[in-house]
């Protein structure tokens, strides 16, 4: 629709936005469809489903993406029948629509590439199936009159007066079709006028084969509905003779205009208006998806745009966050200098600046927060398809989808989650007959949940399947040499073995999972996000994977402590309390582990000085910082408490990446480097009885300690895995 070069420029500029928007619509389509499987009669969702397809088709038409338009049209036709209640959404139909949706997604992705024959053939096969599905909704002359106000743009041009001309093929009668019935059906839609039958096309009786059709009919149809009729509605009447009939349908007036004169200008104007409306929608599509826990609300919106959004490239946000990180560090430096001057005015001014920086920090980080529900929602399809493939009946429950976390974290957790979900489906959940035999309901349950827990996001993947058999795990570990033959590690460590490289208990290796390459990758991916994974399982009752992830990768509130000359930072959310350590009560072994009595409970304590081999004199009055480490609490023995600190997380250099118990580093206002403690990992070190984890490994000893910023205070001996 653009001969004008500036239009072409505009379209080229808008195309990425279209593709993004189309992908959102396609994703929403899939969600709605899957939700509809549970509630096939939900009209709001059906309408939203139709709108998704319609929007994609409409905006694809705007960009001249004919393949998308042509294919989506067939989907839309089927959806229309569903919406009108002429077809019921069966599982077969649902699968067909899901496949069609996949095709639309592919078409959008390859919109600018030339078509290839294979995908074209596949598409045509799908179109055929869509048409067959449509055919099942036999109109039988009783289709209800035209809906008064359906969405009207481009695709379904509406007019009150149409000229229809049909030349029927010779086989029409013998195929059991009756043009009279078709025209009588048209009379349901409006008034037939100026009907004409071309008598001269009919041979004289002497030469007539009475069963061969020679009819060429034409008429004008004056719509009875005030909103006029769409081409599709008329076209629909000829559905069953389409292959055996030359049909021409032309509008004789503009959309719903009383003017019987065909008004090209009026039509063009309507198209321009519609195009403007579509563009306006494109410019303000939903940047932040609606809370996914509120999926029904979202469905109502059909791709919500409430409140108005600005689409910003993620790079620009990253830039702001990087600058903010520098600002936080600089601010901390200024505060420290201000305190040293002991000038009250300066200190107060600095405090105000610090508060503002904190405000900016929080708001900026929120910009990157997205609900995890969108990622969860993708698993509906995975669960549906995978369960079907495996012949299992599984219900997926999603809890806490509106829990927000950093976009980068969400993106990078999707793959590990996918693997765990597939694992649960493949290995965890049993087939229906096995479940019934075990006295469980035939339908398996898989729960994906997310919630906030002490400054982290906790994601759970819970199944009520067969659970993990510890002895099997152990045997496999022995076989694979992960554990020396005959050695039985403590209970909770046995299950952790499944995260070791090269481990797999699947007796039957399927193409879904069970190649034993997955779980260790899952763990390392999660750990790369400064997260952790824990597994609990009860034989016959199911398994639970718990993934803890930081809210953000960029900045945290930290609690700064000193050990000798070294500085460590605990994520503030992980800190429970601080108690003073009485050296006479605390005895630590040479790995730096010990216990104290905390109000009647035994609290494991880690001495960072011993653990990391820091060579400095012990403080006179050490403290114990009590932190949360997974389910447990853990004491960390430190020399001094230096207070709350806004911490910009810098990744550890390659040399220190495998350092256990440390998640990252940060630069303090003074220019010093502080190490950020990973409380969870520290907890594992404390709980670990395997000396190997803390024994120095000669080959991993750092050869050039001066390259580490805190090398004077830190030896990595005995801390590498």
């Amino acid at each position, binding site marked *: 629709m653009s001969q004008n070069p500036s239009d072409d420029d505009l379209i080229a500029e808008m195309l990425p936005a279209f593709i993004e928007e189309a992908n959102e619509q396609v994703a929403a389509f899939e969600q709605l469809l899957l939700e509809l499987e549970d509630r096939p009669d939900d009209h709001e969702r059906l309408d939203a489903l139709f709108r998704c397809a319609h929007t994609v088709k409409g905006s694809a038409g705007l960009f001249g993406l004919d393949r998308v338009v042509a294919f989506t049209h067939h989907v839309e036709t089927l959806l229309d029948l569903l919406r009108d209640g002429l077809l019921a959404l069966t599982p077969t139909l649902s699968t067909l629509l899901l496949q069609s949706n996949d095709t639309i997604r592919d078409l959008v992705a390859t919109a600018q590439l030339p078509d290839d024959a294979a995908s074209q053939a596949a598409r045509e096969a799908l179109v055929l199936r869509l048409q067959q599905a449509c055919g099942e909704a036999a109109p039988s002359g009783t289709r209800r009159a035209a809906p008064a106000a359906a969405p009207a743009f481009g695709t379904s041009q509406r007019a009150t007066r149409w000229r229809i001309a049909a030349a*029927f093929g010779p086989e*029409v*009668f*013998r195929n059991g079709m*009756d*043009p*009279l*019935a078709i*025209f*009588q059906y048209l*009379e349901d839609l409006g008034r*037939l006028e100026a*009907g*004409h*039958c071309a*008598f*001269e096309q*009919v*041979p*004289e*009786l*002497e030469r*007539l084969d*009475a*069963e061969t*059709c*020679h*009819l060429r*009919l*034409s*008429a004008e149809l004056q719509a009875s509905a005030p909103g006029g009729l769409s081409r599709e509605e008329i076209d629909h009447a000829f559905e069953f003779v389409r292959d055996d009939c030359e049909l021409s349908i032309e509008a004789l007036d503009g959309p719903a205009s009383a003017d019987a004169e065909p008004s090209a200008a009026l039509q063009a104007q309507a198209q321009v208006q519609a195009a403007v409306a579509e563009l306006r929608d494109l410019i303000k599509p939903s940047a932040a998806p609606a809370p996914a826990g509120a999926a029904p609300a979202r469905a109502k919106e059909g791709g919500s745009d409430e409140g108005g959004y600005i689409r910003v490239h993620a790079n620009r946000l990253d830039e702001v966050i990087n600058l903010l990180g520098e600002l936080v560090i600089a601010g901390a430096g200024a505060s420290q200098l201000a305190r040293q001057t002991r000038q009250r005015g300066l200190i107060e001014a600095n405090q105000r600046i610090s508060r503002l920086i904190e405000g900016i920090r929080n708001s900026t980080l929120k910009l990157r927060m997205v609900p995890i529900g969108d990622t969860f929602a993708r698993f509906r399809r995975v669960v549906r398809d995978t369960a079907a493939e495996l012949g299992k009946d599984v219900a997926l429950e999603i809890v806490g989808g509106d829990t927000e976390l950093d976009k980068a974290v969400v993106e990078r957790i999707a793959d590990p989650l996918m693997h765990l979900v597939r694992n649960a489906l493949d290995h965890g959940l049993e087939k229906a007959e096995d479940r019934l035999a075990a006295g469980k309901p035939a339908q398996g349950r898989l729960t994906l949940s997310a919630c906030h827990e002490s400054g982290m996001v906790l994601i759970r993947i819970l199944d009520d399947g067969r659970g993990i058999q510890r002895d099997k795990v152990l045997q496999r570990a022995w076989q694979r040499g992960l554990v020396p033959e005959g050695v039985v590690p403590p209970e909770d460590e046995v299950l952790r073995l499944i995260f070791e490289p090269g481990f797999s208990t699947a007796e039957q290796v399927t193409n879904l999972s069970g190649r034993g390459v997955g779980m260790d990758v899952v763990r390392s991916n999660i750990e790369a996000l400064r997260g952790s994974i824990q597994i609990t399982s009860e034989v016959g009752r199911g398994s639970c994977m718990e993934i803890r992830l930081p809210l953000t990768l960029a900045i945290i509130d930290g609690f700064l402590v000193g050990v000798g000359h070294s500085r460590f930072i605990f994520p503030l959310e992980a800190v429970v309390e601080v108690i003073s350590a009485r050296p006479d009560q605390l005895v630590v072994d040479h790995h730096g582990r010990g216990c104290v009595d905390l109000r009647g409970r035994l609290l494991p304590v880690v001495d960072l000085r011993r653990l990391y081999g820091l060579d400095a004199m012990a403080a006179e009055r050490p403290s114990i910082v009590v932190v949360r480490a997974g389910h447990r609490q853990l004491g960390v023995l430190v020399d001094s408490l230096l207070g709350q600190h806004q911490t910009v997380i810098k990744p550890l250099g390659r040399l220190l990446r495998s350092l256990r118990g440390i998640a990252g580093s940060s630069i303090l206002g003074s220019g010093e480097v502080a190490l950020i403690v990973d409380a969870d990992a520290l907890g594992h070190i404390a709980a670990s009885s395997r000396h190997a984890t803390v024994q120095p490994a000669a080959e991993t000893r750092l050869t050039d300690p001066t390259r580490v910023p805190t090398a004077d205070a830190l030896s990595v001996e005995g801390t590498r895995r």
Partner: protein
Amino acid sequence: MSDVRNLPAELTIYAVRDAAEQGLGWLSQLDADAGDAPLQIAADGVEEVDAAGVQLLIALSRSLAARGRRLQLLQPSPVLQRALACLGAAALLGDAAPAASETAA
């Protein structure tokens, strides 16, 4: 010409072959007569009609036109009237012969 010409009750694809035979019979009878009197057919008994039936009537009227004659449907049933109108063949109803014109034969 004494025998009564009636359209069958069912003028559909299932009956058009027989009806065509009948029509050809009427035409040969007409050919025996000189003149240009219209072919009058009682159409009040038509209960069912489809497009094939309508096409048959059109073909008959074409044959008559070739002979300089025309088709006159007497008292067409409402079903037939509607069908002819719907398919744009209302011309066949012509001056929708009133019952009185039967005397013209």
